[in-house]
């Protein structure tokens, strides 16, 4: 199939960007979206032009590196998958595809479609862990965990940190990302020990970084490639409220 691509080009974070139109021909329906961009890039390189920069790595939907806001949707038109897992059969011959980078103040554009998502790491560094050291740990089976809790924790832990929730949210809120980590630990006895402190620290960091507020629009859940539930956000709100009310210290 032949396609017109309308791609955001921006040389660096310091200069302004604009949309540039490209044509690609004879794209197989079996190709993945990123392979389609590879083809475009190889043709640009052959012509001596700068290829389009985009983040990608594992190409099997787990590393969370790929992004791309495609025709108004993070990770494109299909549900429950990342951009790298989307195949061109989701598009029609002759279609124009608009490809934009994630847009959010805490995700500044680095180049073209690449954005800086280190703010997510900063949130994790603020409290997204259990403070255990290596070694000196009791036997793994010494604390039984109800299967349902383990399953819910796993549902939340499936987050790949891609940032689609922020990209999809009309407020560029990171609540789904933060709540997924808060929930995972809140559901497990290992994480309960620091639960009050964790939720306060992580939320404070999230706010400080300039993410928007949650208005319960649920676009995040709809676009999350791992289909993480907004019930995690409610759980975080609960955790936060109780931490604020009874915690011995404010963070």
């Amino acid at each position: 199939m032949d396609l017109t691509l309308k791609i955001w080009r921006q040389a660096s974070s310091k200069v302004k960007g604009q949309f540039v139109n490209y044509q690609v021909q004879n794209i197989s329906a079996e190709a993945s979206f990123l392979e389609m961009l590879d083809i475009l890039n190889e043709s640009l390189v052959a012509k001596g032009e700068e290829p389009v920069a985009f983040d990608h790595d594992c190409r099997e939907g787990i590393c969370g590196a790929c992004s791309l806001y495609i025709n108004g949707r993070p990770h494109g038109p299909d549900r429950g998958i990342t951009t790298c897992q989307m195949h061109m059969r989701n598009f029609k011959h002759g279609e124009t595809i608009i490809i934009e980078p994630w847009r959010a103040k805490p995700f500044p554009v680095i180049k073209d479609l690449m954005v800086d998502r280190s703010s997510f790491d900063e949130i994790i560094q603020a409290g997204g862990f259990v403070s255990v050291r290596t070694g000196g740990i009791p036997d793994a089976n010494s604390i039984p965990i109800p299967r349902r809790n383990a399953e819910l924790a796993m549902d939340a832990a499936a987050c790949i940190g891609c940032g689609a929730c922020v990209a999809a949210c009309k407020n560029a809120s990171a609540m789904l990302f933060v709540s997924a980590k808060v929930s995972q630990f809140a559901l497990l006895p290992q994480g309960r020990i620091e639960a009050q402190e964790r939720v306060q620290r992580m939320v404070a960091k999230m706010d400080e970084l300039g993410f928007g507020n949650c208005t319960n629009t649920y676009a995040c859940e709809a676009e999350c490639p791992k289909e993480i539930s907004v019930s995690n956000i409610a759980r975080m709100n609960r955790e936060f409220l109780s931490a604020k009310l009874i915690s011995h210290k404010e963070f």
Partner: protein
Amino acid sequence: MTKLNPKIPNGQLDQKWTNYKAHQNLVNPSNKRRLDIIVVGTGLAGAAAAASFGELGFNVKVFGIHDSPRRAHSIAAQGGINAAKNYPNDGDSVFRLFYDTIKGGDYRAREANVFRLAEVSNSIIDQCVAQGVPFARDYGGLLDNRSFGGAQVSRTFYARGQTGQQLLLGAYSALSKEIGKKTVKMYTRRDLMDVVIVDGLARGIIVRNLITGEIERHSAHAVVLATGGYGNVFFLSTNAMSSNGSAIWKAYKKGAFFGNPCFTQIHPTCIPVHGEYQSKLTLMSESLRNDGRIWVPKKLEDAEKIRKGTLKAGNLKEEDRDYYLERRYPAFGNLVPRDVASRAAKERCDAGFGVGTTGLAVYLDFADSIKRLGKNVIESRYGNLFQMYEKIVDENPYENPMMIYPAVHYTMGGIWVDYELQTTIPGLFAAGEANFSDHGANRLGASALMQGLSDGYFVLPYTIQNYLANQIQIPTIKTDLPEFVQAEKETKDLIQKLLTINGKNTVDSYHRKLGLIMWDNVGMGRNKEGLTNAIKLIQELKVDFWKNVKVTGTNDQVNPELEKALRVADFIELGELMARDALSRQESCGGHFREEYQTPEGEALRDDKDFTFVSAWEYKGDNVEPEMHKEPLVFEFIEVKQRNYK
């Protein structure tokens, strides 16, 4: 030969690690603060090591190529992680895990290392659970186990089909905790360009900032490489796009020996190649072989019709199907180890029985299991995998048999290390898939995660101190030493050279060519003629690359083409070394199958008399033949046997 001292501690097998720890040198807390450690790579081994060093009190600098440490390719491991917990009470033990691992590796790994791996495996599970890794649990709330190829017990811990992700996120959280405490400094989006050696000791690294292009010097008292495997030498593999061999290759060129470069694991159950433009291969979990039956048509004409699309697989009569694994290996059937299953698939396809449009695929059929167990059971077991397959191939695997083909998955070879995980360069350590590792000539499923975390959490934090204890008098290494200046200059010259060739071929075109040479000659079946030819072709490709490659853009910005060019330049050289190693190893073992050395039934034929050793290659200069050293493998505690899966 004095250089190759594996430093195996004395004593009985199960006492070696205990003895080592009891007698090794340690660094006291006030001195730890004054010692710097560089860790390159943020996968399981790198993140675990860096976090543990930080907790101990060292100054740690971590470097990664991604925008976040959480993206390292350990994240993609699906199946699980082995440990000798014996929770299911099915007879497992540390010794049994050790034995299965060394046998699975076709007796080409070091006894003491493998035993230590099995010994610390239990601590890994404890550690991960304490970190909040949501392993699968049974209804009583205790940890669940599943079985995996090559073992008779259920010892694999798992978190759905995302075990690697959860373990990596556990290590990443530990690392993040230390970064937050500022004991560890994280440098993201950095590519290792060189290892700096001062007076024979590893003292630092040169990295390229992938955003600004700046070439940076970083110094330390010790350097750990945890940069993963080099499967991408084949262009198409299940590795991530940025997985590369450059860090270990630079270390090799600076004097670290390269162990068993030709040992490559080809995973049998991947989605077949579908087009020229394809960028990577997708693995389907090995667990599918538990319920799927592998077959190809019995008659050549049927295979032909299927390839042309005139015959549907489902319409082929039972007696016209060849369930070749069940036929050849009645005892293990579809559950033979990875190397055996891969080779059998290749054999059938080479003989013309392959299916799919390319003829490079075999069927993995669930029809019988669906009939026996019902669609619901199959769906609950493999639903996510079936869905993944359908998304990629656009075919419903509940109705039509899946098509699979082997693909490069893991490299057992890597930088040669001794018992302390130290390379032949003092102060330079290698961990995880980057070292030549404990897997011998073939790795068992669910063992890679175990080894990465073992190296990172429980081995390096001890062994590195044995080295650093002698470094406490050394103040912070200055980065204006001539060795740093020189290494930086060489890096800049290399980049300049690549950017000014301005030839006519893209970097990817060279990578694809290299991949084809490797796959055809240094892949699942190898022979003298092919390997000799491969070496010649690769050498020609190298000359062509340096004359005709086109690298667009400049160095002072994000430049993925330059990144790829630097990596492909190293892959080309690495490919040649792999071919050389494969040529010199005149036996078949594990993932290394030399067609000249097989039994009359077509099984791998080991030569224990002449090849029970690790080949460790020493760099001798550009376009000079490298020298091979041998580390003999001594089996004191187990009996070496022929693997038999019939």
